[in-house]
């Protein structure tokens, strides 16, 4: 089973910690409460970054610190190899914010993590967070309020906006997972249904999807197959996007009816999901559920 379970005790590694982004996000994650135990960088001259010990390889870092999760802040061309290194070192959860990973690399990496039983969140994601406790990646604090709503999203920014409005309305999140906007990725919406079904702190679920691919349709099918009993809300971007043109995310591409808004909304509604037409409508629908819950 896909298991993105983390808490404030999870020992986390940052691959690429000596880079500009790696240094900044390692510090910000630690400030939020994440237990950053080590960094990995081939730059042998760096012994530590802000007090976090830096190792040359994942294997050394894991052996020295017992890290079980890794956040990878490395370039797109290096990402597949870096994930493979983490998996070989025994890491169980990898989070990869990097944008621009070639699709065939993602395909091979997905096969690799599946064979190893490792959970991969990404690529092209702001990461994941347990609000108020731990974050792997860089979800903005203005949008993170602890609460009972599970949230998963393809788009970073649209989920920020959603979380920001829900926070203003007093609705917080339990586990927030950005699955990312790439067509081939480590974890798909449907694969997280068993996790959210079992997660005690989650009382309802919001998915922030977008046109392209078939994840929303698969997710709808998974809700039915698992008899998912918690309320589910959905916000889908790209209703008015032109056909045949990639809209920013490599996965956001409509061919005919495949990947279209209409196909997704229909599948979700058939599975009992409340499909919201705008951010405002979503905020009102989720707030109404939140206010009415026992």
């Amino acid at each position, binding site marked *: 089973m896909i298991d993105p379970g983390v808490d404030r005790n999870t020992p986390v590694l940052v691959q690429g910690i000596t880079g500009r982004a790696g240094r900044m996000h390692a510090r910000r994650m630690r400030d939020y409460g994440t237990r950053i135990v080590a960094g990995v960088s081939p730059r042998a001259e760096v012994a530590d970054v802000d007090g976090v010990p830096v190792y040359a390889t994942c294997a050394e870092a894991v052996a020295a610190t017992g890290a079980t999760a890794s956040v990878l802040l490395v370039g797109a061309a290096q990402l597949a190899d870096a994930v493979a290194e983490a998996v070989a070192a025994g890491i169980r959860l990898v989070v990869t914010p990097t944008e621009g990973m070639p699709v065939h690399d993602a*395909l091979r990496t997905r*096969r690799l993590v599946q064979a190893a039983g490792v959970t991969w969140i990404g690529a092209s994601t702001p990461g994941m967070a347990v609000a108020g406790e731990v974050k792997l990646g860089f979800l903005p604090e*203005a949008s993170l309020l602890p609460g009972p709503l599970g949230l998963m999203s393809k788009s970073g920014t649209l989920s*920020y906006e959603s979380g920001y409005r829900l926070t203003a309305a007093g609705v917080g999140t339990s586990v927030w997972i950005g699955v990312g*906007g790439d067509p081939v990725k480590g974890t798909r919406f449907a694969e997280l249904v068993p996790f959210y079904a079992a997660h005690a702190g989650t009382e309802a679920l919001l998915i922030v999807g977008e046109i392209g691919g078939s994840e929303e349709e698969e997710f709808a099918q998974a809700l039915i197959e698992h008899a998912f009993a918690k309320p589910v809300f959905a*916000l889908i971007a*790209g209703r*008015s996007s032109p056909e045949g043109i*990639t809209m920013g995310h490599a996965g956001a591409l409509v061919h005919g009816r495949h990947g279209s808004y209409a196909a997704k909304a229909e599948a979700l509604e058939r599975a009992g999901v409340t499909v919201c037409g705008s951010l405002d409508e979503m905020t009102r629908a989720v707030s109404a559920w939140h206010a009415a819950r026992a």
Partner: protein
Amino acid sequence: MFLLEHDGKSLLARCGLPVAAGVLLDTADFDPSLLPTGPWMVKAQVAAGGRGKAGLVRAADDLAAVRRCMADMLGATHRSMIVRSCRVETRVAQAHEAYLSFTLDAQAAAVRVMLAADGGVDIEAQAQVAGAVRSLVLAPEADALDAGIARLVDGLSPRLSAALGDAARRLARVFVDEDLTLLEINPLFVLVDGTWLAGDARIVTDDNASYRQAGLRALIDDRAVAYPEAWRKEHHGCDYVVVDPQGDIGLLTTGAGLSMMLIDEMRAAGLRPHNFLDVRTGGLRGDPTRLVDVLRWISEGPRVKVLLVNIFAGITDLGEFSNLLLEALSRVPQFKVPVVARLVGTRVDAARTVLAARGIALHTSLDEALAQVRVHLAEGVPA
């Protein structure tokens, strides 16, 4: 990006695969010596299916007929795209038509190969016939692909089995080696002598792999007019799409999902956004160049009357961003429209001070910003 047929076939030819001889022409008044051997097929070049049924693929037996077909097709609109060029190629006679495609199965993390012994324009009808379309998901390694393809062609006539097996094995290499996400050949011509060639080519390339695909980079540079989105992404690091050439609201936005949603909501509210943009504020690195480029593109929208800046950034320093925005605006002096800014993130107070010095009010609520946009639009309309 979705390749025009001509570019798809050029890619196949570069990889050593057989395609009908052809030439790309953008005027009916062409030099006849450019044409390959006739008789010909004249095929409008738009990156969308359904051309045959729309009369955009036609046979021509003599030079006058080629010119007539081209005159009819050039400038025509197909699925909201304008035909700017035609491929004229040697017509293939007396061939069996089959179907072969390669796609990525994102869920199974595998390559899906689909094969139909009888292809052609009515493949959709074929797909309804049980067993007519054979399909397998295969691991992306050469051995697994070859073994699967052998199973896929098993049971066909010896001539078809040999030709389609050869085609599938070689196309599978191209699919993986060239970083393609769609490779569909329909029709795939199998000739009486048992050889084959690609009658059409529907190809989607992975723009993320351009750093290791020199052929793709060269194509984007040579044909910037045909692939403006890919060209902008390659050279400017951001995604920009004109969604409504007559739109009156320019958008300076970051994030694909939020930008798409903003356009959806504006349209639902009766507003006309001009463009989609994911500017990627995280990649600006203190340099206004990308913003200058984006403002120039937006300023080319003939009816743009107001610029809405919507940035929700977890990490971007909004004070720094605001300075870059003002610097960029001053470098595009011909773009004289009111600016509405809606910014959320770190150092929003610094941003407010910076923008106020230029008379730009900062909103933190998107609804308020949209209300201000409407005010500016109304001001632009003569009483």
